[in-house]
């Protein structure tokens, strides 16, 4: 019988681990190579999850050649309450402009320099001085990097123009809290909510949105959304307390293209492969990260994953970055692991 935890069997060439002093959740891989790019160094930001006010975001350096993952203490900073999401600038012009965005109470931007991190701005949309609904997630538009869309528990999605520092628009997206948002094109985004629907919005026509999926049991919240950047027809979403990953085709609303049901516990995170339009990775409470390939025709018994990885604990976070498409990063318990695909 296979050993469920493969860690002991893995060599470091294919699996790099970082042990954090506290539980972690948010994670992002920088799209810019580190300044001293003589070797392949990639910055990875990791946000803690401590149920207190004082939380921390650490910046790790992943050395591709040495295969090491080390924190850079000078680049750590405090964050009020756990950051719900971290993301780097998708297309940085130069490595100097390595900007990190974090969401929590507000959308904040941080400038990641060689030896320090400086906060750039805090985006607060409230008319009164204090109040702004906390953000559950956000997405940085790759085509239009000045646009960041945020999702909030007050049922709205706010689109920020971060260069001007103003709100481009704020839409009441759903009937209940919005849990995730993802950009498709320059002016098109989709969001999922506790009301169980996936809606697509077009900034050119803000009056209307398209529902492309609703959870079969009404009001089953949809927790996460991922839009396939290689093939914009396809999106994936996960439901609350469900081991299913629902694959949607935006051309055929309400009917999922596929339901991937091979996890043995609820799914926590999904990520499309950045280099292939047919592959998707998912991770869940069963401690497994599964790699799926979506066939043109599905067999009668459903779709099986092509490969898997078993971590020792529930995997909470999954990131598959474009800049290092042969590494998948997962976070479980206090650990961050980079797995070679």
């Amino acid at each position, binding site marked *: *019988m*296979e*050993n*469920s935890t*493969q860690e002991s069997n*893995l060599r470091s*060439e294919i*699996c790099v681990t970082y042990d954090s002093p506290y539980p972690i*959740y948010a994670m992002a891989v920088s799209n810019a190579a580190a300044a001293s790019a003589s070797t392949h160094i990639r910055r990875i930001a990791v946000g803690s*999850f401590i*149920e207190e*006010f004082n939380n921390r975001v650490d910046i790790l350096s992943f050395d591709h050649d040495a295969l090491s993952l080390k924190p850079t203490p000078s680049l750590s900073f405090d964050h*009020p*309450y756990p950051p*719900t999401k971290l993301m780097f600038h998708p297309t940085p012009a130069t490595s100097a402009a390595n900007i990190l965005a974090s969401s*929590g109470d507000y959308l904040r931007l941080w400038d990641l320099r060689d030896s320090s991190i400086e906060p750039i701005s805090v985006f607060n949309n409230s008319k*009164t001085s*204090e*109040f702004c*609904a*906390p953000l*559950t997630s956000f997405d940085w538009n790759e085509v239009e990097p000045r646009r960041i869309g945020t999702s909030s*528990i*007050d049922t709205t999605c706010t689109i920020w123009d971060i260069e001007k520092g103003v709100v481009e628009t704020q839409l009441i997206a759903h009937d209940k*809290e919005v*849990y995730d948002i993802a950009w498709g094109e320059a002016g098109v985004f989709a969001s999922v909510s506790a009301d169980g629907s996936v809606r697509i919005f077009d900034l050119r026509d803000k009056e209307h949105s398209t529902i492309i999926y609703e959870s079969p049991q009404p009001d089953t919240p949809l*927790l*996460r959304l991922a839009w396939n950047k290689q*093939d914009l027809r396809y999106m994936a979403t996960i439901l609350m*307390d469900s081991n299913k990953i629902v694959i949607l085709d935006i051309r055929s609303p309400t009917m999922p293209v596929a339901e991937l049901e*091979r996890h043995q*516990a*609820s*799914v*926590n*995170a999904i990520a499309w492969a950045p280099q*292939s*339009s*047919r592959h998707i990775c998912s991770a869940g*409470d*069963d*401690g*497994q*990260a*599964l*790699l799926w390939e979506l*066939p*043109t025709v599905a067999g009668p018994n459903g779709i*099986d*994953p*092509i*490969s*898997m*990885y*078993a971590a020792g604990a*529930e995997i*909470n976070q999954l990131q598959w970055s474009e800049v290092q498409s042969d590494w998948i990063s997962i976070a479980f318990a206090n650990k961050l692991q980079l*797995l*070679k*695909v």
Partner: protein
Amino acid sequence: MATDNQTREKVPENLNKQLAVAVRSIQWSYAIFWSISSKQPGVLKWGDGYYNGDIKTRKTVQAEELNADQLGLQRSEQLRELYVSLSAGETNPQARRPTAALSPEDLTDAEWYYLVCMSFVFNVGQGLPGRTLAKNQTVWLCNAHRADTKVFSRSLLAKSASIQTVVCFPHLGGVVELGATELVLEDKKLIQNIKTSFLEVPYPIASKIPDQIPDNARNNNGLIYHQINMPETSLNQLVEYPEVNNCSPNNGSNDFGTKQLNEELNMVEDIDGEGCQMQSWQFMDDEISNCVNNSTNSSDCTSQTCDNPEDIVPVSNGKKETHNEIHEAQKTNQQKLNSSDSRGDDIHYQSVLSNLLKSSQQLILGPYFSNSNKESSFISWRKDRLSSSQIPRTGTPQRLLKKVLIEVARMHENCRLESGKCDGKRESLSKPEIDEIDRNHVLSERKRREKINERFLILGSLVPSGGKVDKISVLDRTIERLRELEKRVEELESHRDVDMLDSRTRSKSYDAIERTSDNYGTNKNEISKKSSKNKRKAGDMEEQRTNNGCSLLRDSSNDDITVSVVDDVVLIEMRCLWRENVLLEVMEAISKLHLDSQSVRSSNNDGILSLTIKSQFKGSKTASTGSITQALRKVIRRR
């Protein structure tokens, strides 16, 4: 070798067309020419090809209509172009993929197979083309799609493309491969015809091989002669030109073929030694198994493969026995060879496919795309592995994810609440919670209040108080007024009844009243003139009284109207004969004079009504005392 150099790069242009003609003539799916690489001697790689199979989408690049030939050539060209662009994209992912006329989703499975073949490279003796070249024999593979990958490395591809028959034969220093989606039993004639068609079309390349061929081989039937002659004449030249030994079976004559093969095999054995023998064993095993699969009888099975065992192993019995023997003999040999061979094939196969897969979209690989590659953290997924990974699931599922989405928001809000309490900004937190329903409520409530206020105003005007206009006072006054009016109505009704009874006795009592009221009435206003007036009046009165009882009464009653104005209060005192409705008429008259009566005192003594009315001027109009008096007199006089 010189010929190698010549034949590799310079695949004759005609070869393209030759292949086209060849494959079209037999209506097979594709033809590929594997040529020897100049870089690596003996290694076969893609030379040229023609695709003749099913096409999914037709992309017409040119406006003009192409005939079938040109279309086919164009298609093959496009497929090649696509392959080049895909492989370029793979090697240099940063660069933009050069555009090809076709894109992967336009291809059928067979086209895809054809395209992937372009990536294949065969070492000496490796793979079907490799072995063909090494043997210098035609290889006919039936059921290619079900063949073992050790036998036919592209069998999986063939399966997806439904390529069932693959035939390879050496030609021009390389190998020509033909494939069909149908199962075609071996037919030597077919091969012969193809070669004929090849040779029919002249090709410009002057390779040394044809020079060696005696002239008589050039005619159509030359093939046969060629076949016959070659082994004899070129025995010596075998070392140099092994490809010339085109000893494929060309006629139905088993004997002949057998003999030929015999010689050839011997030659081959001599030349290559043990290694070749290994290969030949393997080769035979492949073909044998295929032939066995085909379940053809010995007479039909004209494949040289079936013939071989008979020759090599001198057993004249039926096929089966020979097969068995060969099988046993080959086992050990095979395993050695196969493992290395198949491993190489596997790696090549997978690497090719994974390379292409990265930059393409369409390929159904299913469970074959497993990462047997040890380089990955991921292991291939199998159902039976599931039961092993049991992480004890305690608590809520998606615990951390839910916390991130829900709890963190709550943390922020609680923090704000605490800081907000000090500032008293609690209302702001409730803002987002106002519902649609609540808003409606507010509006209807407002409307109701407005209505109520309106009615209070009306009520207030009906019940004058001259002071407070707040709702409570208005209601109080209304209550008061209502009670008064009720009381009066009662009184009046009761009086009416009484008077009906006392109507006779009334006249007598009037005198007494008159007298007293006279005094009373005249005493009012003019105090100075009182005495004189009184006297006068008294005198008048007395005179009148003595004269006329009744008329005195009337006059005296008329004279009993006294109107006085003190400040804003108008006091009216009067006496008159009581009659029905007189009071009401008086009140009416007063209100017509724009007087607001504030208090009314009335008493009825023996038929004489005495009224004291205190009133106020309503509005700006004021009537003079004289006019008031006059009006009242009119009322009284009216009967």
